[in-house]
């Protein structure tokens, strides 16, 4: 079934799928973080998304902005570390951009995520190639926008975004980190995939899983 909008229920399914993915890959994310960080990214994301899904169940939202802002606040108040403010800001800004609607079309979803990414940059000052989550999200959004502009449906846009995120994530491997905890390692950070870019890619994996199923 080809659709051109994402409903509130689909957003909830997306978040729940994201929770499942980070939970399944908790050890892998922590392992990536052990190599160039402090061995907590898997626990952080699992704890945060667990809280998010619980919150959604306990206090259902009737509009997209309400949902996403609540997700952002839950992440901010339950994750901590670098991932908490960054993922939290991503969803908070996404909610503000989306507004009090009950569904988003492809362009609006892309614009909301782009606003979220701008928030991440405002907080963390990351640039392309700094070896952070930015390096997965930014190309994914470019691919999403191009697909939507070219007339693709949501499912096709999501798989284009996922492919770009995966490429961006893998491309962090040789990079020397310039932001976050991995930057302390200098040259020794090269040769390892960035944990945040890996969890961000799961955001697009979750989206693709949700809108194509």
């Amino acid at each position, binding site marked *: 079934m080809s659709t051109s909008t994402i409903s509130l229920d689909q957003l909830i399914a997306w978040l729940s799928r994201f929770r499942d993915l980070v939970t399944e890959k908790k050890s892998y994310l*922590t392992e990536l973080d*052990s*190599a*160039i*960080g*402090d*061995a*907590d990214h*898997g*626990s*952080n994301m699992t*704890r945060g998304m667990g809280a998010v899904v619980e919150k959604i169940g306990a206090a259902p939202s009737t509009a997209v902005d309400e949902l996403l802002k609540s997700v952002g606040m839950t992440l*901010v*108040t*339950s*994750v*901590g*570390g*670098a*991932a*908490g*403010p*960054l993922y939290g800001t991503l969803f908070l800004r996404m909610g503000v951009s989306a507004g009090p609607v009950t569904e988003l079309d492809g362009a609006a979803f892309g614009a909301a995520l782009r606003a979220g990414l701008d928030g991440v940059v405002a*907080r*963390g000052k990351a640039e392309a190639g700094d070896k952070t989550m930015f390096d997965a999200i930014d190309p994914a959004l470019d691919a999403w926008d191009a697909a939507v502009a070219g007339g693709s449906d949501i499912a096709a846009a999501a798989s284009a975004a996922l492919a770009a995120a995966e490429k961006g994530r893998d491309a962090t491997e040789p990079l020397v*980190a*310039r*932001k*976050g*905890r991995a*930057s*302390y*390692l*200098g040259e*020794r950070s090269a040769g390892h995939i960035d944990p945040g870019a890996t969890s961000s890619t799961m955001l697009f994996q979750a989206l693709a899983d949700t809108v194509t199923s």
Partner: protein
Amino acid sequence: MKKLINTPESVLADALAGIDAAHPDLKVDHVNRVIYRAEPTRAGKVALISGGGSGHEPLHGGFVGFGMLDAACAGEVFTSPTPDQMQEATKVADSGAGVLHIVKNYTGDVMNFEMAAEMAEAETGVKVASVVVNDDVAVQDSLFTAGRRGVGLTVFLEKIVGAAAEEGQDLAAVTALAHRVNDSGRSMGLALTSCTVPAAGKPTFDLPDDMMEIGVGIHGEPGRHREKLADAASIAKQLVDPILSDMDFTGSPAIVMLNGMGGTPQIELYIMYNEVAKLLEAAGITVARNLVGDYITSLDMAGCSVTILKADEEMLKLWDAPVNTAGLRWGV
């Protein structure tokens, strides 16, 4: 993983319960995970708040009390606490004279404390100042990255600035002093073994039996490089040399800390202190005060760090002022 815990998930809650049970001078907010002095902040006294990931005990909860912090926010193990914890601590500890946030320079800590300050100021109008401690000379090229990490100097800063706040200095003065202390100290650490984060269940890094990790971070972040395990005298040189080549410590009294990482016995810390003291004497540096022990740890990591502060007469006087916390106590 061999640890005295119930479950990896309950580590923080259980430890806070233990701190609460052990220290009648402290008040623990178990919901927000904040450790306060049992007595509310005296009117007119600037409140000092710090916090960070857990696993570095006695930092920060062990430094809450007369002459040091007013509150400490505890994050999950090695994970910065969240802005709502810090905002709550800021509101509760403020007596009207404003609050200083003491933040160790890690991306997560800095961002969370920034959000907390924004939220607290917006919500209640409390005046919040902050100091970001960044003393770890292990991090090189720090201009192009997240900068140097905050490590052992945090202990000195909390002690000295805490005494200034206790004296009644205002927020501007306390903040200026905090920056002055931060600018005057440097640290360097090394590990013989990795730590094991409870939730990860295995050592953060593998270190062969004959190797040590030079310039390790307090969260088990790998360091500058690895090399063959050496004797205490050579190890001391590896810690002291980078500090002395980063800053000139001659001509002023120094406060020196030989800090254990959590898994190193005191007998080894004294052996290391002896070597460090000899090197400092040879470099013409006068050690006026010292600490030898576990003050900022990395769970069960074996290893140590050296912190040197180039003090002045005011800092020395504030250092000697009474302090009454679980981790540092004298003069009362």
